[in-house]
């Protein structure tokens, strides 16, 4: 598995020193890569020297078939081939290596170069290259014989002692000694650091390959010495022999050059993102640094397993299980280390679990209870089956496996931690907030099995029904709270993958309950009205379309259609009228409907279709409520739509009705003045008066004069008209011509003239 570079903790923006260090490091890096580099001497010279060395080495090996230089490049560039003597013929063209590699020639830190001008570098290079099987086999497919061993043994140093057994091992195309340090590519570097376990131990703490943390690339703490025995490299080395390690080198300024971390992430771990994982999520764990039993974790990102904190109870179960396992199984570690907790203290309570008595000498029995801990996500039935299976199979496997593994030098390449890590990921995938949705058949199967078992055992042994308890992972909402500095305007927003930038800054205005209630009520009412209006409209439209449909339907069905029509109209009226009185329009309802513009329109369209009595009632209602309506109409000014249909109605009114209407119009105190202020009101008034006049003038024996009501009403109207200031007199939509004659009946000349003036004013200003 490819092991990622780990970032130093210091890489956060918070620590100044760390940042500076990083920069220095980067600069250095850049310098090496792109600049002249730290070395002064000519690389060509260097190369020549190395080539000579190689010659010597080749002679020493006595013509062992160096089947091609395993190395992809001997310092890049065609120039090198020119400089190399005959061995070059065996060397594949090194032009494959791109120039950057060449510029890495200065990559071995300056400290190295100070020593003997390159000897060390080249020997180091050789060690690295030799130790890395990937590089060794780059030279292409060699003969079958070479590949029999998975890991080609490391090469021997040419100028230093060559162990005779090694000579036979080098034919697998390993790079001979004098390779240019330029071959120390980044990856190779890393590989060495990772794999060069035991040799590193011998280095002192000022090893150039130490990272800032003070650890070697592979854990060097004493607690892990025993663990080293498991290390595959260890085993390989024991089998195959140790290459000679150059003495540790102290760099001049003790800079860490080994772990050339990529530049720190631009977003601060605090602002905006979830805690920065120095190791990106999805990275397998490195070799464990140390195993502290206590909760005191090194806060390094290296040790933090790459999991979000949201992985809750299941993980802790796993950890408990694994912890117990590790204790029971008795790993020969110095201190028995539990796997590290994810994300901090939230899971400490779970941590307190391990029963102390489990620590100590290990027993080789299969731990049944531990399985239980590990399997909380499983159906209980399933778990039971598994434990049974475990127990039956537990004994036989143990011994054999152990025996075989003792002979396998490459075993345990994958450390326990890594296995746990993979297991964790796989377990995470099993978590589900809705088990029935995610794994229906699994749940069902085990439920059925349970039921079956119960049925079988019924009467013999009653097992209490176990309900399926699967850990429900709570969906945690990680809301982003933007960082705000005190006294500043606005909020600092750092967008990251987990919180993309806010496009809209919405502010939630929270209202008190009462206010909300009131507002709601208001809205509800309005909605109600609109709803009613809509319903009425649909009826109205049907009524209106009746004519057309009537023409289209055949004779037989016309009767039915007629009936339908009637009911519709009745319905329409029914929605308007009072509950008990059939001939009076409900004020409330009328008001409500008319308060909406659409309602007014509705009424205006409706009136023509209503039977005369009902229409009259509607008009009455309008007149009665005119002031209120007028007030509500201020915005819409839609009352004027009513003029036409109302006019029609009025003209069909009887005298009594007309009188009534006029009375209604004047109804309450001060109503008339309000009426006069409204255009529609004035128009209505005029209509009524004009109708009255028409009646009087046309029909000699009209009953208008029978009671005094009409006269009185007209008197009051005239009075009002005279009294009202001209400014508040709203111009009507039109002035019927016969008003003057009406007034001439009731008022004297003087007043008439005044009225005329006023009305003329009104009529002129029309």
């Amino acid at each position, binding site marked *: *598995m490819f092991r990622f570079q780990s970032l130093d903790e210091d890489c956060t923006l918070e620590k100044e020193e760390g940042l500076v260090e990083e920069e220095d490091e980067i600069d250095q890096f850049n310098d090496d890569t792109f600049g002249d580099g730290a070395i002064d001497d000519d690389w060509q010279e260097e190369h020549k020297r190395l080539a000579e060395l190689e010659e010597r080495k080749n002679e020493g090996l006595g013509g062992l078939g160096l089947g091609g230089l395993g190395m992809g490049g001997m310092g890049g560039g065609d120039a090198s081939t020119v400089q190399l003597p005959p061995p070059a013929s065996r060397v594949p063209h090194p032009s494959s290596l791109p120039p950057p590699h060449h510029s890495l020639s200065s990559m071995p830190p300056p400290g190295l170069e100070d020593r003997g001008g390159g000897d060390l570098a080249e020997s180091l290079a050789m060690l690295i290259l030799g130790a890395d*099987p990937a590089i060794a*086999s780059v030279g292409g497919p060699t003969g*079958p014989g070479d*590949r*029999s*061993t*998975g*890991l080609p043994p490391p090469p021997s140093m040419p100028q230093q002692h060559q162990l005779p057994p090694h000579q036979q091992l080098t034919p697998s195309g390993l790079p001979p000694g004098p390779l240019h340090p330029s071959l120390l590519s980044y990856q190779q570097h890393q590989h060495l650091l990772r794999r060069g376990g035991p040799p590193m131990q011998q280095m002192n703490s000022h090893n150039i390959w130490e990272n800032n943390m003070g650890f070697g690339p592979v854990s060097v703490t004493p607690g892990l010495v025993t663990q080293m*025995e*498991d290390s595959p490299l*260890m*085993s390989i080395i*024991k089998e195959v022999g140790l290459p000679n390690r150059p003495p540790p080198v102290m760099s001049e300024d003790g800079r860490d050059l080994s772990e050339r971390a990529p530049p720190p992430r631009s977003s601060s771990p605090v602002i905006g993102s979830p805690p920065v994982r120095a190791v990106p999520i*999805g990275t*397998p764990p490195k070799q464990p640094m140390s195993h502290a039993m206590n909760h005191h974790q090194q806060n390094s990102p290296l040790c933090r397993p790459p999991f979000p904190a949201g992985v809750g109870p299941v993980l802790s179960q796993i950890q408990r299980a*694994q912890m117990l*396992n*590790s204790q*029971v*199984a008795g*790993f*020969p570690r110095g201190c028995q280390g539990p796997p590290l907790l994810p994300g901090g203290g939230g899971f400490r309570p779970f941590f307190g679990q391990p029963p102390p008595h489990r620590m100590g000498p*290990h027993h*080789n029995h*299969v731990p049944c209870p531990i*399985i239980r801990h*590990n*399997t909380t996500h*499983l159906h209980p039935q*399933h*778990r039971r089956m*598994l434990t049974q299976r*475990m127990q039956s199979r*537990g004994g036989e*496997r*143990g011994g054999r*496996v*152990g025996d*075989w*593994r*003792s002979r*396998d030098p*490459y*075993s*345990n*390449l*994958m450390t326990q931690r*890594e*296995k*746990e890590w*993979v*297991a964790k*990921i*796989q*377990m995470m995938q*099993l978590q589900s907030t809705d088990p029935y949705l995610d794994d229906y058949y699994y749940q069902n199967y085990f439920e059925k099995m349970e039921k079956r078992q119960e049925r079988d055992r019924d009467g013999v042994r009653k097992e209490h029904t176990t309900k399926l308890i699967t850990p429900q992972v709570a969906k945690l909402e990680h809301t982003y709270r933007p960082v705000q500095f005190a006294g500043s305007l606005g909020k600092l927003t750092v967008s990251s993958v987990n919180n993309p930038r806010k496009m809209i800054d919405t502010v939630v205005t929270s209202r008190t309950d009462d206010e909300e209630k009131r507002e709601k009520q208001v809205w509800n009412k309005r909605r109600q009205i609109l709803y009613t209006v809509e319903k009425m409209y649909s009826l109205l439209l049907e009524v209106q379309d009746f004519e057309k449909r009537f023409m289209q339907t055949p004779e037989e069905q016309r009767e039915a259609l007629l009936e339908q029509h009637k009911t519709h109209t009745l319905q329409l009226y029914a929605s308007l009228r009072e509950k008990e009185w059939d001939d009076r329009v409900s004020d409330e309802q009328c008001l409500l409907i008319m308060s909406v513009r659409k309602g007014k329109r509705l009424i205006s369209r409706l009136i023509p279709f209503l039977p005369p009595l009902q229409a009259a009632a509607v008009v009455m209602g309008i007149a009665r409520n005119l002031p209120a309506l007028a007030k509500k109409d201020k915005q819409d000014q839609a009352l004027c739509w009513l003029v036409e249909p109302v006019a029609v109605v009025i003209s069909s009114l009887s005298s009594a009705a007309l009188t009534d209407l006029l009375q209604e119009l004047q109804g309450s105190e001060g109503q008339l003045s309000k009426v006069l202020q409204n255009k529609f009101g004035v128009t209505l008034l005029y209509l009524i008066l004009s109708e009255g006049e028409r009646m009087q003038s046309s029909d000699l024996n009209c009953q208008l004069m029978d009671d005094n009501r009409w006269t009185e009403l007209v008197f009051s109207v005239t009075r009002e008209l005279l009294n009202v200031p001209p400014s508040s007199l709203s111009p009507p939509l039109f002035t019927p011509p016969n008003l003057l004659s009406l007034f001439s009946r009731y008022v004297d000349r003087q007043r008439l003239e005044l009225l005329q003036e006023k009305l003329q004013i009104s009529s002129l200003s029309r």
Partner: protein
Amino acid sequence: MRFTSRPKMNYMPGTASLIEDIDKKHLVLLRDGRTLIGFLRSIDQFANLVLQQTVERIHVGKRYGDIPRGIFIVRGENVVLLGEIDLEKESDTSLQQVCIEDILEEQRLQQQSRQEAEKTKHLALKERGLVMPRPDIMDEYGVQHQY
């Protein structure tokens, strides 16, 4: 080397996981039809495999030949199936091992004959108006599978 006992830990009871298969000899069948045999050394969450001492085994009829390959890293998505090889029963097979050149030759012949058969079949079908989708067009790798 000191013997360390591995705990009998069941990481994923009831589920399929390769963790217990580590360090065991496996036979891996790939999507392109190759058969690899090697020691499974490392896995990851995608079931990418690291096989060590890998051998590619070519089967033709009752004979097979091995090509040693060294270390293989197989991308998980390319694995059709894999299974543990019982080391004791491994030699207990009726198949006959031959040297690699022979087996390659046999394989070539087999491929050839198969292709010819395919061609004639295709032609015959075409005459009848039926065009069967050819597997090499269907399969993205365009390789004939070895049965």
